[in-house]
Structures are given as structure tokens and as C-alpha cells.
């Protein structure tokens, strides 16, 4: 260690004036994190000429107790305990200007059960800090002691399946389109046709709330007529995500209560309502036997760019703590951003009991979820029946596959589109269970199923050339290499 990084004695440390953060106690290379520490991994891009260790110490300082100058009032507290400690700084594999900084936070820095409090520290002031060009929160390790202060998903994957009486295959959904402009009566028509045709769920889009063309009560009433008609037509439990997002908590509770009164099995909220509102709705959902769907509206503004913002894997962790049952987590093959390995990392965070470090999928920490329920990931955006083998291969069984255009845009109509998707799904799960190499034989399996299902034949024909093959902006830093042993 260079001389300048050595710990100062108390007198030197607390003399009035400005001191480097690393000398103030925010850089402790010998620190070994406690099991109860919250750990954050940041990708830091220091300004030219700024020492990366000083930058990491500054992030630790600004996200915990520090300000820009020495304050004597530190000495009235157990300040060494409350200081976050940067303990490790690694160069990133692919960019000489970026570093990974590991920072440990004492558990007592955080209020139990509050995402708002956690994030006010971890992504508060620090993201605007001038000595950094850019800063990204890549991952977090949440100690079991802290995880246990959160409710977690209101329903969870297992109980959701029990309530829906639906096992052994991904759930199927569709977002009603066009997303804006339909009247309540027309909107319910789409819901009815799609559910009757074979989907389990339909969904309001993120920006369907209560607008001049369709107010919320009208939508709820027509949608529930559609849900019940479809249930009677098929003998299955059906649902439609009634979006209760509104301008105030009072209004959201009112809409949620009405959804409950109508017998809906599920409601939905948007990420933009904020962490506290999400936690409140999760508590309401637990109290009222309601599945809670979260649409991640707005996340792309801070998750997509690799150098600055918050990785979606961190948002997924926060949302599992906050208590949502569904979260949109990417499709791999659809129209929206999503590298396969990175997306697998998100899905693992939603669905596993314990996550193990997996750098190739962007998971930097072991994470024990301490029996918190699992979140059902949702794949939505530009997917269609012809990709069924790839979807099951990449995303697995516990996922909602949402085909909006891929249902409503079917040439024979909405119900036919839904049937095509359901037949494709069941045929692929059947083939997988029967031991076929379904990924390689996917197109053949679909063609065979289409022999007894004209809607599937038409879907395969019309969308056969649709792919969205663009470079990802958020691929993992680490790729597995073949070992030579």
C-alpha cells in the first residue's frame, strides 16, 4: 500500500479541513465483509486523473456518512461502524477506464423493510458526484437478516399456479392492443376472444389507466364480463391484469378494491409509481389474496446503458424484496433489449431459492433468499409462436409468455391467434417431456402440431421471418472459456 493510503491517527484524521476519502476511512483493503453487511458492487468511471481507489472510497463515503469536508461531529458516533467501506477495486475486463468497486455497508445503516431507505443511500446523492464520469450499480448482496425484514412476493409462483390450477407449462398472456384508444366495450372484446382462444391472462398496458376514451371502472366491468365468459367457455381459471396505477395511493387502493369486488384474480401496477407505493400495494395484495403484476415501465432510462445507472438485476432484487408476483424480465428473442446470458441472470434472481455467483450471467454474489416467495418473470415484446422452442429453452417453465401482436395480429382473428400460441406451447412442452431435442427440432415439432391446428399453421407462415437480431448494449463482462485440463 502506498504511504499516502495509510490510516491516520485520530488527531490528524479529525483536524478541520478537506481530506481524501480514502484517508477518511472509506477505503479498507483488509476489510472482510460480515455476513450481515449489505454489499454493493459499482462500476465506476473516474474522471481523468482521479485515482480509482479514491473514487471508490468517495462512492462509499457519499453513499453512507461522508460529506466533502471533515466534521468533528463524527466523533460523537461510532463512526467507524457507520462508514461504508470500499474493500476491493478491480479493473473491468474490457475497458481500461472502468473499475469494479466492492463496498460493504453495516446493516444498521438501513431501516428494516424499506426499499426507499435502502435506495436513498445506495443510489442517492452519489450518482451525481462530480469526480466520477459515470457510475453504475451492478449488483448487491442482501444479507439474510435484512431480507427477512421484507414481506416478499404477495403470492409467489407456487401459490399462483395453485390458484390458477395451471401446472407444467409457461402461462400464456397477451397485452391488449392498440394500447390506447379502445373504448371499454371494445377492449373487453379483445380480452374475451384471447382468453376463450386459450390464453390464461390478458393485460392492460402500462399507460392504460383512466383516460377520456376509457375510464377505469368501465374497463374493469367489461373485462370481468370477458373473463367470466371465457372461464365458462373453457372450464379454466382466467385472469386479466387490471392496471390500478393512478396519481395517488388513495385512488390505487380504490381501484384495487373494486377489482377484488369483481372477483379478479390479479391486478397490476407500474414501476413508475415508486418503491414505497409498490410495497404498499404488495401488502394490500397479500391481505386480499391478489396476484400483483409489475410492469417495469421506465426502467430502460437507467438500466440499459452499461456505464451509468442501475442494472436491472438490482431492480429485480429490490422488487422481489418489495413483494411483486410478476415482473417483466426480458425475452431474449423479442424486440426489446436482452442478452441471453444477462437475461438468465435476471430470471435466476426472480426464481431461485439461492443464487450462486455466476459471472457469465452477471451475478456477482451468492444470495440467499431466505424462503421469500419466488417472482414469476414475464416475457413480453415481439415474440410469436414460431419461437416457442427458443422461449422454453431460454426462459424455462415458470414464466408468463406474452404474445400481444402475436395473438391479436393473427390473420384469422384473436381467438385463433391465442389457440395457435397455446397449441404451440403444449406441443413443445409435450416434446420436451418426451425426451426430444426440442431446441434443434423446434420447427419440426411446430410443423407437426400445425397439421391438426390451422391457426398455428397460419401463424407460422405469417411470422416465420420475424427476428430481432441486434447487438445488446448490456452483455456480461465475463465470458466462460474452455479449460485446458
Amino acid at each position, binding site marked *: 500500500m502506498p504511504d499516502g493510503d495509510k490510516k491516520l491517527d485520530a488527531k490528524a484524521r479529525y483536524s478541520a479541513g478537506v481530506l481524501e476519502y480514502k484517508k477518511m476511512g472509506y477505503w479498507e483493503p483488509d476489510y472482510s465483509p460480515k455476513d450481515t453487511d449489505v454489499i454493493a458492487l459499482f462500476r465506476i468511471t473516474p474522471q481523468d486523473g482521479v485515482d480509482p481507489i479514491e473514487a471508490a472510497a468517495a462512492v462509499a463515503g457519499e453513499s453512507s456518512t461522508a460529506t466533502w469536508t471533515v466534521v468533528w461531529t463524527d466523533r460523537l458516533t461510532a463512526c467507524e461502524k457507520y462508514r461504508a467501506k470500499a474493500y476491493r477495486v478491480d479493473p473491468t475486463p474490457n475497458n481500461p477506464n472502468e473499475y469494479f468497486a466492492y463496498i460493504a455497508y453495516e446493516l444498521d445503516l438501513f431501516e428494516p423493510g424499506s426499499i426507499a431507505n435502502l435506495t436513498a443511500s445506495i443510489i442517492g446523492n452519489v450518482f451525481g458526484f462530480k469526480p466520477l464520469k459515470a457510475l453504475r450499480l451492478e449488483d448487491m448482496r442482501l444479507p439474510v437478516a435484512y431480507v427477512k425484514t421484507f414481506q416478499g412476493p404477495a403470492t409467489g409462483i*407456487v401459490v399462483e*399456479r*395453485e390458484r390458477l*390450477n395451471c*401446472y*407444467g*407449462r409457461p402461462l400464456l398472456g397477451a397485452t391488449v392492443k392498440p394500447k390506447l384508444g379502445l373504448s371499454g366495450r371494445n377492449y373487453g372484446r379483445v380480452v374475451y376472444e384471447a382468453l376463450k382462444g*386459450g390464453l390464461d391472462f390478458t393485460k392492460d398496458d402500462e399507460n392504460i389507466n383512466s383516460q377520456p376514451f376509457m375510464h377505469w371502472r368501465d374497463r374493469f*366491468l367489461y373485462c*370481468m*364480463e370477458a373473463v*367470466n*365468459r371465457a*372461464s*365458462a*367457455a*373453457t*372450464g*379454466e*381459471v382466467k385472469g386479466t391484469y387490471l392496471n390500478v396505477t393512478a396519481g395517488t395511493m388513495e385512488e390505487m387502493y380504490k381501484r384495487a378494491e373494486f377489482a377484488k*369486488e*369483481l*372477483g379478479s384474480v390479479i391486478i397490476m401496477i407500474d414501476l413508475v409509481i415508486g418503491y414505497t407505493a409498490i410495497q404498499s400495494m404488495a401488502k394490500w395484495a397479500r391481505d386480499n389474496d391478489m396476484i400483483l403484476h409489475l410492469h417495469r415501465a421506465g426502467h430502460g432510462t437507467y438500466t440499459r446503458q452499461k456505464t451509468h445507472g442501475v442494472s436491472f438485476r438490482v431492480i429485480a432484487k429490490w422488487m422481489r424484496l418489495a413483494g411483486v408476483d410478476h415482473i417483466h424480465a426480458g425475452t431474449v428473442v423479442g424486440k426489446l433489449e436482452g442478452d441471453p446470458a444477462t437475461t438468465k441472470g435476471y430470471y435466476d434472481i426472480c426464481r431461485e*431459492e439461492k443464487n450462486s455467483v455466476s459471472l457469465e450471467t452477471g451475478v456477482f454474489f451468492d444470495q440467499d433468499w431466505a*424462503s421469500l416467495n*419466488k417472482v414469476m418473470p414475464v416475457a413480453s415484446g415481439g415474440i410469436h409462436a414460431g419461437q416457442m422452442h427458443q422461449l422454453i429453452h431460454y426462459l424455462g417453465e415458470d414464466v408468463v409468455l406474452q404474445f400481444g401482436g402475436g395473438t391479436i395480429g393473427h390473420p384469422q382473428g384473436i381467438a385463433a391467434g391465442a*389457440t395457435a400460441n*397455446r*397449441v404451440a406451447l*403444449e*406441443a413443445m*412442452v*409435450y416434446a420436451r*417431456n*418426451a*425426451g426430444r431435442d426440442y431446441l434443434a427440432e423446434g420447427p419440426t415439432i411446430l410443423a407437426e*402440431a400445425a397439421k*391438426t391446428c390451422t391457426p398455428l399453421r397460419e401463424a407460422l407462415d405469417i411470422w416465420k421471418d420475424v427476428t430481432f437480431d441486434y447487438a445488446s448494449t448490456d452483455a456480461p463482462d465475463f465470458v466462460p472459456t474452455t479449460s485446458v485440463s
Partner: protein
Amino acid sequence: MRVTQGTFSFLPDFTDQQIHEQVQYCIDNGWAVSIEYTDDPHPRNTYWEMWGHPMFDNPDAAAVVYELNECRKIYGSYYIRIIAFDSSPGWESIRLSFIVNRPSEEPGFKLSRTEVKGRNIQYSITPYSSDNPQGSRYK
């Protein structure tokens, strides 16, 4: 109509060979397979009658297919489903559930509406067949 509960109701009805394949998949995953039957296919009728206990230690799908055919001899006009139960921690519930026998005619469900205040409607779904007593609902 066709009751489409279960994992594979949108596919043509399975042969015994196809049922065997799916059951073996469940067994190979360590799940206990059981057979259940009912003449009340209401979507929220959770507890169908059990044809014996789940077959916890059975390694061979042929035994399940044999029991299914025994069940069919008595309840051939009922709905019969195969269920696979996974007791591993964090799941402890059903992993796969599919219908393997159904009545030759499925009259479907009646949807009743009760209008209450504020344009609200309370819905109730009843199988048409359930007007008859249990045991005499399907031919």
C-alpha cells in the same frame, strides 16, 4: 365444448403410450404420480377424488397406466387426470397435471349473472351436468 384444464388439453387426446412417456418424465424427476377423477369439472373444484394414494416409490410408468385403466373400468365416463407431485423444498406442490379421460359429451358450463349496484355483476359458473346427483352426471 371441451374442458381445457390441464397441461395438454389443446393437443389431441393422448394414447396410453403418450401417457406413459409423460408419466415416466415425472417419475424420472422424482415426482410422485397419482390418478384423480371427478364428475364435477368446475374450474375451482380443487379436490378431485383420489384413485388410491400418490405412487411415491413407483419407478415404472407402466404401473400408473395399469392403474389408470383400472380406474377407467369404473369411471370411464368421468374426467380423470394424472397429477405429479414434487415434495422438494420451496415447491411442495404439483408440477404437472393433465386430463387423460373425459366424458364422451361435455355440455359445458352455465354462466349466471346477478346484477348488483353500480352496474356491477356477480358471476357464477355451474357445470350443466351438476344438476344431476353425483354419479349420474355423464354417460
